């Protein structure tokens, strides 16, 4: 990654601390928010449950009061006189009850009212005649079919229904309407309307708060504030009508101050339902919860800060150890292994780091060894280039030849020596054309031929096709020198012979230096073993090992020098790749 794109920021430890704290605070905040919400929500639920239970208590009281009026209504249905009169009215189009019949009906209806809870009972025949428990028919009940609730109830075909409150002589009454049928054939004879004092209901809930008795559609049938009777409870309080669908429920009330709620409970009996308004003030609870949540959050933050500092320090410590080790490595100290204390990811990282460090150290030692070998080889090559003994001997030879008056040989040797050094010191290039390497060898051989006149003969057999190929320089001369010195002269061979060949074969250039020096096969094996022992520091065969090392270091692959016995000849065999340019990739 380029330096310019690296973001500078907090240290890893600080980042870990901040993240640990952030992660720790999330549940604290969530729990705090949830606690606030749940306190408010469940507080309201508890209040609703309490108020609903209170409403159920009122319903039980209400049902007791209403049972009387219902029983009165049912009994009216079975009064024999009522059945007879209504049957006559149904079947006789011209029937009109006389005063006596009305009086008897009044007496029967009054007898039904044993308690002072029912204001009056009215019975309506199918032809519109009205019979009542009262001395006269009160205003508003002469024609009850004028009321919408009555017409709707009759149209529903139900056996009974509760009507809406009616004001009779400044008194609110709640009408309970029942069908009157012939018990034998169940033919409809008329309707009874039993009027319950609304104040009777009020007494059953007056001590239970702001309670309302409601019809199925929410009309207020009874309330402490009589002016509210007849209004629709849900519309008056801005409550959705959906509340009517369930048996119980609660809702927020609009327009009556904040935190005002209504609980609603449908009467499981065949009686009107109930609703109750109440105020749920939870501000003190919320304030307490806020303080509690704040204190808890602050405590958690402190604890989290300590914990995150401790944990991040504990987490970063081994990483710091690794960084310090890397710094020491950067300064060259590779043998400082880390000691993992755990087998977790950090421990495994340390183990891997130790392994990598060991391998790096081995690689560096190998590179150092190779560099050393290269340095020694280069030194030897330079040494070969300017061998002082060779120069001294050659110059002595030239002096000797001059003294002997052999000017031609002086010229020949001087010319060869000049060419030899020109090629050797060729601006430091490692690669030379094979033609130059052969020329260098030829000069060397010419000089030695004069110097050791008559001791050996040599032949150069080089394929002209390879002369323009390239080779690393001065790889033939040391081997020829070995052949002359250790093969022919050390063994005092009278007719020394050296043959140097060069040709290309299968993408390789093959040089061979053959001599007839008397070297046994066992010695050949020792020489090959010495060539393969790269790390040996022995002085044995320095020249040939130097040549072999240079070839192997320069060329990749199975190139190099080897010795073999071929009949009476000792053969130095060199293989290098064919190089058509003065570079090797």
């Amino acid at each position: 990654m380029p330096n310019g794109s690296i973001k500078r920021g907090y240290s890893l430890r600080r980042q870990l601390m901040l993240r640990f704290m952030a992660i720790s605070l999330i549940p604290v905040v969530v729990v705090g928010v949830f606690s606030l919400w749940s306190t408010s929500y469940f507080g309201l639920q508890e209040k609703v449950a309490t108020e609903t239970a209170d409403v159920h208590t009122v319903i039980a009281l209400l049902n007791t009061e209403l049972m009387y009026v219902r029983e009165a209504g049912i009994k009216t249905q079975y009064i024999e006189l009522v059945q007879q009169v209504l049957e006559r009215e149904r079947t006789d189009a011209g029937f009109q009850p006389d005063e006596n019949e009305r009086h008897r009906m009044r007496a029967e209806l009054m007898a039904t009212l044993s308690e002072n809870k029912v204001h009056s009972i009215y019975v309506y025949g199918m032809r519109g005649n009205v019979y009542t428990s009262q001395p006269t028919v009160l205003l508003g009940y002469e024609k009850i079919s004028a009321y919408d609730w009555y017409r709707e109830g009759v149209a529903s075909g139900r056996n009974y229904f509760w009507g809406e409150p009616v004001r009779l002589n400044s008194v609110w009454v709640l009408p309970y309407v029942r069908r009157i049928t012939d018990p034998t054939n169940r033919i409809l004879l008329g309707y009874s309307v039993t009027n319950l004092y609304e104040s009777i209901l009020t007494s059953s809930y007056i001590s239970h708060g702001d309670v309302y008795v409601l019809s199925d559609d929410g009309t207020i049938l009874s309330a402490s504030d009589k002016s509210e009777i007849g209004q629709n409870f849900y519309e008056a309080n801005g409550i959705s009508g959906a509340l009517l669908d369930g048996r119980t429920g609660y809702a927020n009330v609009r327009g009556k101050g904040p935190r005002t709620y209504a609980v609603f409970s449908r009467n499981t009996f065949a009686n009107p339902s109930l609703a109750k308004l109440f105020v749920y003030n939870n501000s003190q609870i919320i304030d307490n919860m806020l303080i509690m949540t704040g204190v808890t959050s602050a405590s958690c933050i402190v604890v989290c800060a300590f914990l995150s500092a401790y944990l991040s320090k504990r987490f970063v410590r081994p990483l710091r150890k690794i960084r310090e080790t890397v710094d020491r490595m950067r300064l060259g100290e590779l043998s400082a292994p880390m000691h993992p204390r755990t087998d977790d990811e950090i421990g495994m990282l340390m183990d891997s780091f130790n392994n990598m460090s060991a391998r790096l150290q081995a690689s560096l030692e190998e590179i150092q060894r190779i560099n050393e070998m290269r340095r020694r080889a280069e030194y030897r090559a330079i040494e070969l280039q300017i061998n002082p003994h060779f120069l001294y001997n050659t110059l002595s030879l030239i002096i000797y030849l001059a003294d002997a008056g052999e000017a031609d040989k002086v010229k020949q040797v001087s010319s060869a020596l000049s060419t030899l050094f020109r090629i050797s010191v060729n601006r430091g290039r490692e690669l030379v054309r094979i033609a130059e390497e052969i020329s260098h060898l030829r000069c060397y051989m010419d000089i030695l031929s004069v110097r050791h006149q008559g001791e050996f003969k040599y032949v150069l057999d080089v394929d002209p096709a390879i002369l323009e190929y390239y080779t690393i320089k001065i790889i033939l001369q040391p081997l020829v020198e070995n052949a002359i010195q250790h093969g022919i002269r050390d063994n005092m061979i009278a007719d020394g012979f050296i043959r140097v060949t060069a040709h290309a074969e299968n993408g390789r250039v093959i040089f061979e230096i053959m001599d007839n020096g008397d070297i046994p096969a066992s010695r050949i094996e020792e020489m090959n073993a010495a060539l393969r022992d790269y790390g040996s520091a022995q002085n044995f065969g320095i020249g040939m090992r130097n040549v072999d090392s240079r070839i192997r270091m320069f060329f990749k692959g199975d190139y190099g020098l080897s010795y073999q016995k071929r009949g009476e000849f000792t053969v130095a065999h060199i293989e290098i790749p064919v190089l058509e340019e003065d570079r090797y990739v």
Partner: protein
Amino acid sequence: MKKILTLLLIVSLLVPAALIATASAETKGTIGLVLGYRRDEFYMDLESRFLSAAQEAGYELLVTDTDFDIARSVAAIEDYTSMGVDAILSWGSAQFVSAIEAAVAAGIPVVCYDGSTPSELVTANVTYDPIDDGNAIGLWVKAYIEKNWPDEEVEVAILDFPASSEICVGRTNAFKAVIETIPNAKIVAQMDGKASRADSMAAAETILEAHPNVRVAYGINFDTVAGFYAALEGRGKTDCICVSSGSWGEEAINFLVEDHPQYKAFTLMNPWDMADASVQAAVDAIEGKEVVYNQAMIAKTYDASNISELDYKLIIESR
């Protein structure tokens, strides 16, 4: 780790769901019982058996004691209809027809017990056949007279209960029909005992005043004939036997077990049988099975010779 968390999440969701399912599986529904009253052993045993039978069937039973009040019973049926119970069990009366038909129209099956309700919409009428009842006890009296008083004029007195137009009137009429076939027997008196011991005692005293030679006293239930027996005791009259229809109770059974010299025979209606049949009819109707409309049960006649065949001890002990 993810799998474990997923598993825990699933378990945490399933456990409450399973608990809710288990809780909701506790009851299949609710049945409303319109009880006649709780003032005699028959109805007390009937109510307790209704409760246990409904519980065994998996239903909650709501009970309203109406004290045999028509208006209160009609109101109870209407309340159960308003509540939306799964079925209603009610004592039967012709005056319940409108309320019962409204319940059935609301999809609630209604089973009437201990008296029928004349409506095709009633799911089932589970009753002890009053005709069979009166007939059986009449035949027992006939056999007794033929065996013990073959050559004597036997006066028979009856305490009936006309208010119970179907059951008690039926029993009485059937009993009278058998007695009238006995050549040497004669019904000398028939009065309303109001199905109560006190009223029956008063009525019996009136009868005995006019007919001191009564040899057979019949009551439409045990309380009625017990009132008659009290009047007999008061007069020190021991040559009169007492029989009754529609009896049930520890007292009546013990008289037979002890082979009482005057309490001779009763038809015993087993309330458990009636309760079991009624609840079964209601449950079958809820489950959409076909239910027999008229289920007339037989009240067997017991006397000292066969009372041991009745497993009454289990019922008494379960109170």
